[in-house]
């Protein structure tokens, strides 16, 4: 592989070469002129009288000087031309790079070649390449998300259509009633799915959060109050344990995060109690939602965070997006999401660790 050369070295080197070339040319022309004059001088030796000698000498010197100026007359434009060519040549890697960058479009973001680049621009190109890779990943994610979303919307639509056709074709009143009820259930489910999809799409697009000091407990109280009705339907107790912590975050998003966690536990946990706790661990606030239901198999831990993944044991009423939303909000807050089996061994426990607000961090460091 060719060793990378800096632009400076190239420019200096090529300029020196051009100057040396012109210098040699001048020397050659001078040498020829001098020889010519000397030959003439020797062919017609000057008379010996002092006055005459001085005149002859001055004449020859004047001629030599005049002849010396002549090559410079050509040498300077030649030097200028050579310099233009040399600098142009020295800058070709930059031109090539500009052309390569101009050829990149959102559809074509393959990495730029990094070999034989001047050392000044190599870091720039490497940074550009990693940026391209990031953009490609983001675009790919979006493409996959759209495809997945289309896929996920088709199934509820198919169910709605089939139920409607069953209702139309039915001659049995009870059967028709059942199909119509199912259509309403399906509409609710599709509505939920669309809402979740929109939440996730907004989260993906928006990375600028409204960050404030936020107390987690009031958020937890509100979310649990909102979920109370559904908890009763599922014969499930909601318990909020003592403790609070302030984090730096977006209150609306943190509320959505907790609502999804509680919703998830209610819909898919299948337990009789959901425990929510807010604790502090070093410089993090830990929000934990645990249920005592059937839990998740260990090998499913990594899958449940994937978009649209629905556990085999779960009914299909969910969107498969809840945990994706939770994970995304956690990421936006610089936190981490952990799934584990609770100490009791039953059910599943989801813990979101978020950085504490600045004031609290100092307090916990002092305490």
């Amino acid at each position: 592989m060719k060793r990378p050369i800096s632009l400076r070295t190239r420019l200096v080197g090529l300029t020196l070469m051009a100057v040396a070339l012109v210098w040699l040319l001048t020397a050659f022309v001078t040498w020829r002129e001098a020889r010519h004059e000397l030959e003439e001088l020797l062919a017609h030796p000057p008379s010996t009288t002092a006055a005459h000698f001085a005149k002859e000498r001055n004449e020859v010197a004047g001629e030599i000087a005049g002849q010396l100026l002549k090559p410079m007359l050509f040498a300077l434009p030649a030097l200028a031309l050579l310099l233009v060519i040399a600098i142009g040549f020295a800058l070709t890697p930059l031109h090539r790079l500009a052309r390569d960058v101009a050829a990149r479009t959102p559809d074509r973001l393959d990495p730029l070649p990094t070999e034989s680049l001047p050392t000044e621009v190599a870091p720039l190109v490497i940074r550009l390449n990693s940026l391209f890779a990031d953009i490609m990943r983001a675009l790919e994610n979006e493409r996959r998300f759209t495809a997945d979303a289309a896929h996920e919307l088709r199934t509820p639509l198919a169910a709605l259509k089939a139920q409607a056709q069953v209702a139309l074709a039915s001659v049995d009143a009870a059967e028709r009633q059942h199909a119509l009820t199912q259509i309403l259930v399906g509409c609710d489910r599709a509505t939920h799915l669309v809402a979740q999809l929109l939440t996730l799409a907004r989260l993906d697009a928006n990375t600028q959060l409204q960050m404030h000091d936020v107390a987690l407990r009031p958020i937890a109280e509100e979310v649990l109050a909102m979920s109370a009705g559904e908890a009763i339907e599922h014969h499930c107790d909601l318990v909020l344990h003592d403790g609070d912590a302030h984090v730096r975050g977006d209150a609306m998003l943190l509320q959505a995060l907790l609502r999804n966690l509680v919703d998830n536990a209610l819909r898919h946990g299948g337990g009789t109690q959901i425990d929510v706790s807010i604790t502090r661990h070093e410089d993090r606030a830990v929000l934990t939602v645990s249920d005592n239901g059937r839990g998740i198999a260990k090998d499913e831990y990594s899958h449940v965070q994937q978009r649209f993944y629905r556990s085999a044991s779960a009914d299909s009423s969910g969107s498969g997006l809840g945990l994706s939303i939770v994970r995304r909000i956690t990421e936006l807050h610089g936190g981490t999401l952990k799934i584990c089996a609770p100490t009791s061994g039953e059910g599943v426990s989801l813990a979101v660790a978020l950085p504490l607000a600045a004031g609290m961090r100092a307090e916990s460091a002092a305490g």
Partner: protein
Amino acid sequence: MRILLVEDDALLGDALQVGLRQTDHAVDWVRDGVGAETALAAEDYAAVVLDLGLPRMDGLDVLRHLRAKKKTLPVLILTARDTVDDRIRGLDAGADDYLVKPFDLGELNARLRALLRRAGGQPSPVLAAGDVTLDPATRRVECKGREVELSAKEYALLHALMQQPGRALSRAQLEQHLYAWGDEIGSNTVEVYIHHLRRKLGADVIRTLRGIGYVVAKSGSPS
């Protein structure tokens, strides 16, 4: 005909089960790939309606395993992915037909009828044996050009026998065609339906082969 429905979506599965029953199929519904394998190993189905995105085992794997066991029963796949690649993969894995969600229940039924017809070696959509004709599309049964009213179970039984005229089906096989899981089976119901059919269509349309079962003759009665 007895159909295995493999669909993990509760609402869609429920609709398909009822929808297929409305056209007098006996339908067993399983919600995941492993359940489908178990059902296919245990029972004799006329056709399978298979969703591809299944928990526990992918629909395509179920299909590949089924074909690896040299089972030829018709399989219609339901897919929510509509790219050409997905369809090609499904058909290459051994599917006979596919429908992209959301689909029309009527079309699903028509495609199933076509698959069942081809599987039975019947090129014509209307099944015929002697004086009796049966049109699976309209579920109209005629005897000597005159329409005959049949109950759902009577129709299903006649349909099974007329699928392959000349081939005898045992009582157990006929029960398989008539009943899905959870249906009550009376001890002599097949005999009762055969009796009804003979009364409506004529005594010699369905013959009893002692110890073997029942058969519809290809060219009707020799009389």
